[in-house]
């Protein structure tokens, strides 16, 4: 009941449910950077939407199944193969023992997700199986996968028929993104706050599961660099004194001292996991009440394919 890593790629980790309710201890949330794509993969193999799965970054990866199993691949657009033959994303794939699966480099988007019937077995630390690399815990030995690693599969809870994600439930993977956001605690320290929602940002090279750089323009921030450290969350956008914004993602720290000038609305947070260096990003302003209504509408829409979506987005 194992799979063996043939080529781990740039960074492949096991991700599962977020590490909820631990931020007051300085413990970040973690979990899939794009939890919607991970949930879609788990759905296709009959798993709980948050079952441990592989998160594959940019360059792809490959593995061999040493057991008959079912898998599904979602997320970034990537050319995938089984034994060298093209394999579709968003489809339950039946694997026989010995089959080799190759997840190609991401052509658009940043992260592919591979779910296995029964889920991957993973170490649990501080209430979650999601790998947190900076402290080296949970997932698979707290580290990215390496060549030769053998990963155990859980027991499938039911036999699933082959499924395909309906076209209307395949999240678009883009080069240019619009993401809903609103003001935060220190927005008033920007003398040019209006530009937050009228700027085309470029995602910087220094972007990862902790955060993404928003390049292309600098903001005028009235700050002396001595702000008392304050709580921050995935989606918080901060502005250091150099005026270049960054947005925090799933592995970001829990407190920070750079002014918090905006926050991505909860309903669009999952998109952060697919933004890659060089992509364009526009922030669209949403008042809180609208962000709330639109979240509920999004839940209603997604519940038809993914019951329990409220746990995901």
């Amino acid at each position, binding site marked *: 009941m194992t799979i063996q890593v043939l080529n781990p790629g740039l960074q492949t980790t096991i991700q599962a449910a977020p590490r909820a309710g631990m931020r007051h201890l300085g413990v970040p949330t973690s979990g899939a950077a794009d939890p919607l794509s991970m949930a879609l993969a788990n759905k296709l193999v009959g798993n709980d939407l948050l079952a441990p799965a592989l998160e594959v970054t940019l360059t792809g990866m490959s593995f061999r199944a040493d057991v008959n199993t079912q898998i599904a691949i979602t997320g970034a657009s990537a050319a995938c193969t089984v034994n060298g033959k093209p394999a579709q994303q968003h489809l339950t794939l039946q694997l026989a023992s010995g089959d080799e699966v190759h997840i190609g480099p991401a052509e658009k988007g940043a992260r592919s997700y591979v779910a296995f019937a029964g889920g991957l077995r993973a170490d649990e630390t501080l209430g979650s199986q999601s790998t947190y690399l900076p402290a080296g815990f949970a997932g698979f030995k707290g580290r990215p996968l390496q060549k030769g690693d053998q990963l155990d599969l859980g027991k499938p809870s039911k036999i699933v028929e082959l499924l395909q994600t309906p076209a209307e439930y395949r999240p678009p993977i883009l080069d240019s993104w619009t993401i809903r956001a609103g003001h935060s605690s220190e927005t008033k320290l920007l003398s040019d706050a209006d530009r937050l929602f009228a700027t085309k940002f470029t995602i910087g090279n220094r972007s990862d599961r902790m955060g993404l750089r928003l390049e292309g323009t600098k903001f005028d921030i009235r700050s002396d660099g001595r702000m008392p450290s304050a709580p921050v969350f995935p989606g918080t956008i901060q502005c*250091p004194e150099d005026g270049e914004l960054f947005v925090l993602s799933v592995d970001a720290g829990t407190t920070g001292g750079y002014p918090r000038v905006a926050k991505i609305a909860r309903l669009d947070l999952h998109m952060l996991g697919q933004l890659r260096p060089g992509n364009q990003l526009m922030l669209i302003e949403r008042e809180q009440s609208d962000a709330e209504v639109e979240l509920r509408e999004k839940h209603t829409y997604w519940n038809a394919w993914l019951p329990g979506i409220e746990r995901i987005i």
Partner: protein
Amino acid sequence: MLSAGDDLVSISVANPREAQDLATRLRESLAFLEVVAGIDSVVVQFDIASKDRNDIEQQIAEIVAQPGNTHTISHALVEIPVCYGGVAGPDLADVCEQLRISQEQFIALHSGREYEVDLVGFTPGFAYIGGLDDQLNVPRLQEPRVCVPAGSVGITGGMTGLYALQGPGGWPLIGRTSFTLFDVDAGDPFVLVAGSRVVFVAVDSM
């Protein structure tokens, strides 16, 4: 009470002790997803899909209005060895130049006095320690570092920060410690907690 985002409410408080106390009481209500204390604020994250913002704000106001509990538990004094300057503290020379003091003066002012941990946050085990001598107040780096080594000791805005893990960071680094700040294999992985008493001891090497 202020909004910090679509699902966040921020409450201002006077000091770190009040922040810890209010955060504890809010957390005990089990009404919120996350309750995180800062130095002079507490931020609550709530489930906007199932809860109404007005109800949440009212619930927070009721808890804020209840009497606080800032009595202190007495903690043992923890000695933290620090190798100051050089490779271990690459910003110490700049900091001393900014403050117009010698490195010896800096070390004398920073070590050999008792501090209290105000907050553990940022990353697992990172400790914010207030009470720095007024002369040692410097701002954050204008551009944060991509990679700060584990054990680094930074200062900013009147506080000392201990980087438990390697990672990005924006505080000028004045030294490094070999002291283990986070041990995931220990029964309780968090070595320091808010309220812990610490003293820095200058050492020549790591």
